[in-house]
């Protein structure tokens, strides 16, 4: 019922220079690996990318960064990437750092038809500079505006052909809100099953938010392998 693309290249075909993209994931967990690689191959430029992090030097969004395809990055933590640091210092990239909860809520609001909201996060800090602050019950809150995107590229564990999605463990993170906030949302999934094969009570993202599917093997690189002996 939703288009199932045969290749990552086909799935990102509609992306043009200057567009705003949301990309799911926390660190390297839950990122749409193959769709990012396809964006690198496509070479689209001047992108505004909204994602919690910006990958590492040789994987995830770090690859788009290395290829100088990102004009502006909106995220909460970009500290794992040397190339990012270099581009910030040289002025090649614009960065908008947003508290993580505010970022999640801006994206949620964008997909939910809420243009702006008040949050306590960032009051009295540089984050609140130039923004309206209002007092409720004696406490200060700062006005933050919603975010939307031309495309959202997300990652899920399972999809049915309607486009209903189920995520695995902490690979859920920003993906569900981004699904709703993208004008067009493409989900890279590990497995596509027949419609009706997923338990409706277990669906994380209802199919209405998803415009296309792409099935791919995931490499799932681990950023910090930590084990106990």
């Amino acid at each position, binding site marked *: 019922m939703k288009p199932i693309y045969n290749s990552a290249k086909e799935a990102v075909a509609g992306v043009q220079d200057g567009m705003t993209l949301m990309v799911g994931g926390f660190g390297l967990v839950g990122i749409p690996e193959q769709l990012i690689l396809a964006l690198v191959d496509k070479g689209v430029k001047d992108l505004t990318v909204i994602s919690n992090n910006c990958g590492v030097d040789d994987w995830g969004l770090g690859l788009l960064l290395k290829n100088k395809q990102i004009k502006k990055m909106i995220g*909460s933590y970009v500290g794992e990437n040397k190339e990012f640091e270099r581009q910030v210092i040289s002025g090649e990239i614009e960065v908008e750092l947003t*508290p993580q909860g505010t970022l999640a809520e801006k994206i949620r609001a964008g997909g939910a038809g809420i243009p702006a909201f008040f949050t306590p996060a960032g*009051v009295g*800090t540089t984050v609140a500079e130039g923004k309206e602050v209002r007092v409720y019950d004696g406490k200060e809150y700062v006005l933050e505006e919603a975010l939307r995107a031309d495309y959202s590229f997300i990652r899920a564990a399972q999809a049915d052909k309607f486009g209903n999605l189920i995520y695995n*463990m902490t690979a859920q993170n920003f993906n569900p809100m981004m699904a709703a906030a993208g004008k067009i949302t493409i989900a890279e999934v590990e497995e596509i099953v027949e419609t009706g094969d997923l338990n409706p009570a277990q669906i994380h993202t209802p199919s209405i938010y998803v415009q296309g599917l792409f099935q791919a093997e995931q490499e799932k690189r681990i950023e910090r392998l930590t084990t106990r002996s």
Partner: protein
Amino acid sequence: MNSREKIARRAEKEIENGNYVNLGIGIPTLVANFISPDKTVVLQSENGLLGIGPYPTEQEVNPDLINAGKETVTTIPGSAFFNSAESFAMIRGGHVDVAILGAMEVSEKGDLANWMIPGKMIKGMGGAMDLVHGAKKIIVIMDHCAKDGSAKIKKQCELPLTGKAVVNKIITERAMIEVTENGLELKEVFEGYSVQDIIDATEAELIINNVRENVSI
């Protein structure tokens, strides 16, 4: 016991049976190692997990299961996964009992600076600015002084703030200090230090009233 372990061990005493707790990256993460076996504590990870378990064995490693420090972890029985908006709703909504964070500076009004140093590369605040506004009790744990010996507990923070008037308690390797409406109240001085030592190592004014001295951890 080194000073990091000492701080972590003292911080653990602030956690009550049944608490939901968020531990920041660095020394705060160590607190998990000292949680008493007679307390049931649920650790929250802001990337979408309630109920962080121990680090996995090599066989247990799952690349889709990490904590907010991006380390591979496990889950405890009774854990739950959720998205990032839900995660911060439970943080800002006041549902988390205790948040334990590291700091670069704390002021006498309870202002916290822990996310950037001007002139150095800005990495981002992650979830810290949200966390300091939601948890019922915000505990800062850190070395009492900076590496060069300068005070970290100041009249006013010089570094850019993470949050204004958000800290409830400061625990260092030398003392425990509460942030009150009247200012910073010195409550405990740990073994090996005197009240005067703490005053000398603290730039902010300290209220000295009913201090427990020579406290061993």
